[in-house]
């Protein structure tokens, strides 16, 4: 009883935070070393159920932000609110139960000796009853199409397969916030596609889940509702994908990839053609062929 009461206390929502907020960052700053901030005064409100993409050059602070949100790093200043609850040393672990974070390296996040053991790891940490684990593990493996490999060892799996297992491990804990930190960055195109499909599938099955997808792949960013563009520790753009990617000049200047249609429009405009921005390739095709 006392632990439950204590937990309730630790998880009291702050009334000033909007009720539909999933992640609220308030003036968040962080630096790995003294005299240098990797994240500067970030203020951000991500609503429940949003699918947000985060793009930015290597080193802009996106992974740092992900780790801060998950409570793995402690900020220099500012506050983090998860579902309205302010994160403190005392409740970070509790809040983390509702947050899943998948990293980019398939090997260094594969913890168990086999696929089963790896998926079980998160369940063990959440103190799930042993008798319930088998079913959850099998189901999660099915969700990522790895049920044939349940007894395989990591040294016999490809990068893409290992990443799928990592996602299965996250699904097993059933968090309401899912963060993927460049989960497909080290995979071949097939692996990247598989990850993208799994994300779409999960969102379809569970529309209320809040997804943060840190990625370099422009196409994936288009799947999301909202795109955050980060540069040198700041968020410089925050809007729907179509709006963000229309800013080809800006994106190019911070060495980011621009979707093909926008790139071509820009190149045509640079060469003097009178052509306005388009939303996608079909539109561009029509415009050019008129």
């Amino acid at each position: 009883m006392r632990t439950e009461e204590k937990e309730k206390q630790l998880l009291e929502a702050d009334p000033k935070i909007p009720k539909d907020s999933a992640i609220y960052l308030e003036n968040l700053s962080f630096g790995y070393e003294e005299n240098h901030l990797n994240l500067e005064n970030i203020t951000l409100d991500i609503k429940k159920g949003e699918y947000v993409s985060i793009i930015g050059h290597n080193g802009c602070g996106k992974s740092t932000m992900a780790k801060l949100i998950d409570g793995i790093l402690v900020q220099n200043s500012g506050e983090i609110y998860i579902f309205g609850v302010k994160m403190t040393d005392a409740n970070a672990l509790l809040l983390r139960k509702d947050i899943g974070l998948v990293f980019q390296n398939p090997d260094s996040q594969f913890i168990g000796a086999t696929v089963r053991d790896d998926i079980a790891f998160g369940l063990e940490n959440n103190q799930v009853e042993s008798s319930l684990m088998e079913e959850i593990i099998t189901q999660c493996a099915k969700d990522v199409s790895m049920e044939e490999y349940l007894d395989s060892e990591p040294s016999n799996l490809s990068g893409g397969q290992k990443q799928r297992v990592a996602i299965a491990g996250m699904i097993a804990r059933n968090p309401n916030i899912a963060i993927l930190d460049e989960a497909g960055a080290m995979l071949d195109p097939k692996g990247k596609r598989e990850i993208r499909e799994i994300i779409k599938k999960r969102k379809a099955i569970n529309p209320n889940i809040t997804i943060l997808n840190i990625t370099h792949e422009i196409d994936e960013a288009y799947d999301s509702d909202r795109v955050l563009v980060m540069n040198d520790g700041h968020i410089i753009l925050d809007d729907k994908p179509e709006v963000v990617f229309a800013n080809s000049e800006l994106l190019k200047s911070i060495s980011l990839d621009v979707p093909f249609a926008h790139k071509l429009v820009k190149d045509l405009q640079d060469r003097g053609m009178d052509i306005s921005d388009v939303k996608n390739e079909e539109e561009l095709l029509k415009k050019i062929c008129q």
Partner: protein
Amino acid sequence: MNITLGKYQGYDTVYHKIDARIKLVALILFMVSVFLSYGRTSMYGSYTNIFMYIIIFIMMLVLTLTSHSGFIQLFKSLKALWVMMLFLLLINLFLPGRTTGDIAFSLFGRNIYYYTIINLCYIIIRLILVLMMTTVFTSTTKPMEMTSALEWLFYPLKFIKVPIHKIAMAISLALRFIPTLIEETNRIMKAQASRGVDFNQGKIKEKIKALISLIIPLFMTAFTTSGELADAMEARGYDPDRKRTRYKRTKWSTQDTIAVIVLALYCSAMIYFAVQRFDVTDLFPGIILPKLSN
């Protein structure tokens, strides 16, 4: 010497199916039974030991053969041990020892007593027996199962503040990463070979440099991986100080019950023989054996 002696072999014998904890306890009990002292008569002492050891040896032989424990490898390794045995023999010959009991024969002007020979025999047999037992254990038990069994065995240490669970976690992580690190080593070797490094030839200085070009990147990778692994574990809610449930994968089966019964019988038998001071001379009354002491 074949260093893969004792590596897990994935056959499908009854021993592979038995719970690792039972096997671990069995291993300990077998080892104890090898080091117990049997026999009664001081004059003919130690013959009983040999006799018991031969019985245990036959049991072990049966176990080894039926569990596909790499008998050939075992045999090869034992062949390598003959050097050590020769060494022991020589020591016993040339150092002053006991000068009691019946003399077996004379060599280079020194008397070789039966006592010396018998003792030599049973040092060697003990060694062979222990080797066989551990080989059967390690070749029928997966490393992860061994770690769980050890964790279970050392549970009481928790009460004197030894962090058994953390140690077990560290060991299982290390085991999980051995193949990965081996792969990484091969990768680095190939990369350095592409830069002209020859791991086989060259002066000592060059070879050391070559080794450094392998070890430093390996260490760096290991450290980076540990950091990332720690993050991943934390992200999945790992808290070393908090209680965790365990994913139990094996159910108790009939084989396990039978194994426990067999083990219990074996134990009782051994203890009975030791306590009752059963002696070889009981079995073969009237047998004449060289005296081992006066």
